[in-house]
């Protein structure tokens, strides 16, 4: 196996034959070089990692599934759940995919979400009602005021979406298409990307990227006030089209059969016209020579915008992404919840028991609890508020093994006015972590205190 080195000058060392760096690039390299991992540490870490990778069983943690965390670009082309196996998801996910229908997974997701909400609300209520005796102090009290409790008012999504759209219309009096036209006139070229910025700030504006109709290839950024249509900033993005690959891509954008403005018109027509939809962004996208234009549009149906994907050669609509219709996110979430669900059912110590154990041990009140997978075992991370011996309030974070009930780690935080000056005391209860503790000691610059477990 060959490992391709960085294209140029990694870790602050310019490669032979490199063009002279611009100043900022050289500074960034200097900064990176100063904070680099030294070769000896890298070798030691490599040895440890290779050994560690061999000692543990199959991956179960979301932390250890990089391919699944990187969604599959081909999913957009209408793939279904059955294909998830090939995306590199680990065995557990494949098992879930083959075993469960999408509907069942979603039901589980909803069940778990509801259960989590009940747990959180219950503990919030407990904390609120019992809070003052255990945890006096304005900081905690403020955070437990009823104003921060979840609202019981029914939420009218459609009404909210309409108001949201109206608010945007009010603030974006100049429309995206007009902004692009102005920018193209200003820079005498063709727009390849445009979006809206700072909608709710003092000066909502559009930024349009234009490639002028003249050699050499350049990229101009034009900022346009979304209320007055005034061009208030124009600048060339210098030096960023030096790369041949980038120049080729941009050339394809400006030679596409469909312009960005036309694509916005197509998207609006699809979504009911200017009266019903408000475009926010439009960009060319080039993936493996497949050129599309993505138009992001706000509609009265949801506060989440719709993404219309248009073929940049033919102008045909490839896909209209419904609000929240993000299959990858949804699938990922459902799988994660399903995995947690199985774990929560299978572990020997249930959540309620773990909380009781932690409360008894710390004499505190739990305010959050979470089942996590760490280092090939299931653990509970439980946060509690406690009253310390000196009367100050404090947070305690307890980690205990979800199968044995053993306390693995207890960390106490006490805070003054400045968070950064908070004191931390830790107890470790893992015989195998001696070495790590010493390493933490070395690295610990926040004044943590370690206590042997």
């Amino acid at each position, binding site marked *: 196996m060959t490992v391709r080195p960085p294209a140029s000058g990694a870790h602050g060392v310019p490669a032979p034959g490199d063009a002279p760096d611009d*100043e900022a690039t050289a500074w960034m390299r*200097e900064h990176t070089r100063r904070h680099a991992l030294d070769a000896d540490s890298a070798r030691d870490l*490599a040895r440890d990692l*290779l050994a560690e990778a061999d000692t543990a069983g199959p991956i179960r943690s979301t932390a250890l599934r990089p391919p699944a965390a*990187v969604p599959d670009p081909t999913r957009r082309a209408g793939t279904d759940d059955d294909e998830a196996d090939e995306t590199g998801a680990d065995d557990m996910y494949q098992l879930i995919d083959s075993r469960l229908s999408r509907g069942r997974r979603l039901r589980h997701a909803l069940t778990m979400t509801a259960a989590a909400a009940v747990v959180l609300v219950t503990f919030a209520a407990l904390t609120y009602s019992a809070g003052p005796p255990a945890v006096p102090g304005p900081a905690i009290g403020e955070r437990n005021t009823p104003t921060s409790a979840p609202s019981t008012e029914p939420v009218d999504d459609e009404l909210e979406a309409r108001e949201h759209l109206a608010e945007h219309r009010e603030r974006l009096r100049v429309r995206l298409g007009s902004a692009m036209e102005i920018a193209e006139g200003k820079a005498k070229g063709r727009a390849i990307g445009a979006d809206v910025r700072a909608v709710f700030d003092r000066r909502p504006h559009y930024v349009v990227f234009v490639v002028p109709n003249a050699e050499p290839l350049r990229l101009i950024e034009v900022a346009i006030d979304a209320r007055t249509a005034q061009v208030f900033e124009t600048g060339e993005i210098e030096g*960023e089209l030096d790369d041949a*690959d*980038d120049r080729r891509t941009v050339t394809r954008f400006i030679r596409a059969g469909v312009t960005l403005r036309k694509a916005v018109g197509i998207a609006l027509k699809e979504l009911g016209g200017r009266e019903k939809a408000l475009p926010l962004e439009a960009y060319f996208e080039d993936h493996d020579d497949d050129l599309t234009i993505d138009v992001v549009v706000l509609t009265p149906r949801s506060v989440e915008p719709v993404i219309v994907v248009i073929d940049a050669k033919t102008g045909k609509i490839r896909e209209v992404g419904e609000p929240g219709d993000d299959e990858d996110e949804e699938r990922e979430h459902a799988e994660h919840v399903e995995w947690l669900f199985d774990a929560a059912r299978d572990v020997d110590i249930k959540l309620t028991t773990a909380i009781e154990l932690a409360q008894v041990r710390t004499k505190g009140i739990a305010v959050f609890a979470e089942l996590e997978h760490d280092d090939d075992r299931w653990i509970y991370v439980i946060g509690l508020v406690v009253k310390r011996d000196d009367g100050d309030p404090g947070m305690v974070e307890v980690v205990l093994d979800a199968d044995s009930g053993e306390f693995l780690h207890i960390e106490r935080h006490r805070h003054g006015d400045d*968070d950064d000056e908070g004191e931390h005391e830790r107890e470790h209860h893992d015989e195998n972590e001696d070495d790590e503790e010493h390493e933490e000691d070395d690295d610990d610059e926040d004044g943590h205190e370690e206590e042997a477990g």
Partner: protein
Amino acid sequence: MSAVPRSTPPPAARRATVHAVQPTRGRAGARPRPTEAELAMWLRRGFAYARTLTRCDATAHDLLHDAMLGLLRHPGTDWTAAYVLAAIRNRHRDRRRAAANRRVVSLSVVRDPDDGAGIDPPDPRAAAPDGGPTAAWHQALDRAVAQLADSEREMLFLQAIEGFSGREIADLTGRPLPTVQSMIHRAKSRIREILGPRRDELGIPTAASRGRDR
């Protein structure tokens, strides 16, 4: 120009879910692991990226450890820069999400070390009493880089250190090409704005002296 309207879809996130670098189908078969020396090289490279994302040595170590362990254990890992850096980036994103979720329910006032906001304390070597212009320059450089927006710093790193083209960065981060180019341009301009006027005071090496150093 990094502000995003309240309701605009997280463009980067949404596009990333569609277009981000991803191992292609049918490539999930077992692949050879890197040797110890190769892995050490990946670790150095990965650490630089992880530190750029987190701005904290300790958090970068944790992030790198998790991501690399996952890559080693996954039989289909494609040991290419795009794949490895994407794994680190995704892991970082997951940790930030988890940290954000926990903050909502925890009532904790503790600054989470994984939230990416932690900046290493000043390097004691740089702050040494006998620190000359070099120490001050390094300190100023660290501060200047820390002042960049997270995304700008990441883009600049990927271009300056990894040598990625704008399109490769766009693929990795899920952002449109013009935005990537704009961010890199702004990052460079910002650093020049911060450090340029202090060139003499800090003894910043000039391009000519850098050339001689090579």
